[in-house]
Every structure is written in C-alpha cells, then in structure tokens.
C-alpha cells in the first residue's frame, strides 16, 4: 500500500474520495426523503379535509381563508414539518450508525447552517404573508425557499440533492401564477418529489451496499 508504484489513477481517485469524505456529509439516507415525503402527503390530505370542512359554507368574498382555519392550518404545518424532520434525522442517524460514521461532525454543521439559513429567512417571510392574508403565496414561498436551501446545501452533502432543489424552485415559480392550487403544488413538491428523490438515492447508494 505504501509503494510508490501504485498507479497514478488510483492515487488520484484516493485523493478525490478523501476530499469528498472530509468535506461532505454523505450519510443522508434515502429513507429520510421517503419518510419526509409521506409526512407531507398525509399533511396535505389532512389540510384538504380541514379546508373542505371549514369552507363548506363558501369562501369569503376576497378569496382568503378565515382566521380560525388559518390558525389550524398553521398548526398542522408545524406538526408536519416537525414529524418530517424527526423521521428524516432518525433514518440518517440509523444509516450513519450502520456505517460507523459520526453524525455530528464539521460537515454536518456546515450542511445544517447552509440549509437552515435560507429556511429561516423563508419562514419569516411566510409568517408575514400569513399575517397579511396573502394565502395564495404561502405554498409557492415554501417551495421556493426550500428549493434554495437544498441547492445551497448540496455543496456539503450528496450533490444530487441539487436537482431536488431545482425541481422545488420550478414548482414554486409555476405556483406563483396559480395561487389557488397551492395545496396540490405543496403535495407534489414536498410529498411526491421527496419520495422520488429518496427512492433514487436509496437505490443508488444504499441498496447496493446492503447486498454486498
């Protein structure tokens, strides 16, 4: 192993893998995406029931949502977000333990900071949208800021997550011009795309490792 005759191509591959492993958080599990997506779909279904139930008497004149429903939906959103986060962290923790990698290292901190920052900025903006009753823009804003967070974080974890980010941004942008369909876009972006991404990552990185 220490002989100078090891082929240069192998050496370069070694260097590259060492650079990636030391600077990226690669334990992110595909199951995290799948579970977060399922949480989002359940959440969207519950929200659609709430809305149907509450608006049985018809919308208010200006098309915005009544206050009581507003609060219930915000609460539901926080629950869904927490459930998705907890399940995502759990599966990633299980994977990192299986592979014997520490979960809380420098690369994890960097990933967290770079994704949390756009999400906090987006969160503040969305709270203001809610207060101002610009309800049609809440779902697109969620998708846009989440997409930006993913693209920003992709430099510090599996690079493929950038494509998930691009897809969320595109959905969010389209949704800006179709404000009445927020829940569908929300379910597509946070639900379906997460699940597809999770399956893709699982097949690409984890399925192989388990059979070998």
């Amino acid at each position, binding site marked *: 192993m*220490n002989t100078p005759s090891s082929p240069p191509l192998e050496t370069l591959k070694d260097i590259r893998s*060492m650079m990636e492993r*030391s600077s990226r958080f690669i334990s992110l599990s595909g199951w995290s995406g799948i579970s977060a997506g399922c949480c989002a779909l359940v959440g969207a279904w519950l929200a659609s029931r709430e809305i149907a139930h509450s608006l049985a008497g018809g919308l208010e004149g200006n098309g915005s949502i009544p206050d009581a429903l507003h609060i219930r939906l915000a609460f539901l959103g926080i629950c869904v977000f927490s459930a998705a986060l907890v399940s995502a962290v759990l599966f990633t923790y299980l994977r990192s333990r299986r592979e014997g990698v*520490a979960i809380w290292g*420098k690369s994890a901190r960097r990933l967290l900071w770079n994704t949390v920052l756009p999400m906090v900025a987006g969160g503040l903006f969305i709270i203001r949208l809610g207060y101002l009753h610009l309800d049609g823009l809440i779902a697109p804003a969620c998708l846009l800021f989440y997409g930006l967070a993913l693209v920003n974080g992709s430099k510090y974890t599996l690079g493929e997550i950038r494509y998930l980010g691009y897809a969320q941004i595109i959905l969010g942008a389209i949704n800006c011009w179709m404000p009445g369909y927020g829940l569908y876009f929300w379910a597509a972006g946070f639900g379906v795309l997460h699940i597809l991404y999770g399956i893709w990552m699982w097949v690409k990185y984890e399925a192989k490792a388990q059979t070998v």
Partner: protein
Amino acid sequence: MKNLIANLNKIFDSRIRLGIMSALMVNETVNFNELKELIEVTDGNLASHLRTLEDNNYLKVQKGFIGRKTQTTYSVTKAGEKAFKQHLEALEQMIRGIE
C-alpha cells in the same frame, strides 16, 4: 518515464500522508480525531505521519482545549499546498505519459 517519477514527492508516497493532505486541502482545519476516523488508522500511526508532514513544514499544528480535553487541530501551510499541487501535476503527467 524515469524523470516523471522523479517529479513525484517522496513524502506523499505514503497513502496515509496523502490522505491527511487531501483532507487538509479542502478544510481550513481538521482535528486529530476527524483524521483518525477518515483515514482509519491507529493513533500512533497517524501521529507519526503527522510528525513527518510537520517536520517538512507542510502543516501547522494548533493545540487548544475544549473543556479539559486537549484538542489538536491541523491546517496546511503555503509550502504544503504548493508541494501537494506539484504532486498532483506530476500524477497527471504520468497519466498523460501512459496514454
């Protein structure tokens, strides 16, 4: 072919030393335990390779405390960066030479 091999840096012959340098090139600082985990070597082995790199002025050592525990972090020096880049170029030339 002979002079191509001569361009390679002898210090980077060792896979462990090469690993240490690779990690330091893409991180401002890396501490001892992170390196140990990354390269999967014993404490003694890693320490001796780190010493060699330090003696050649390729890396800087900072000792500090986290609570009562000592924490040793390493970062690459200008000389180390230059040597590593030259080594990479030499490897590249060898690949071109084979083709």
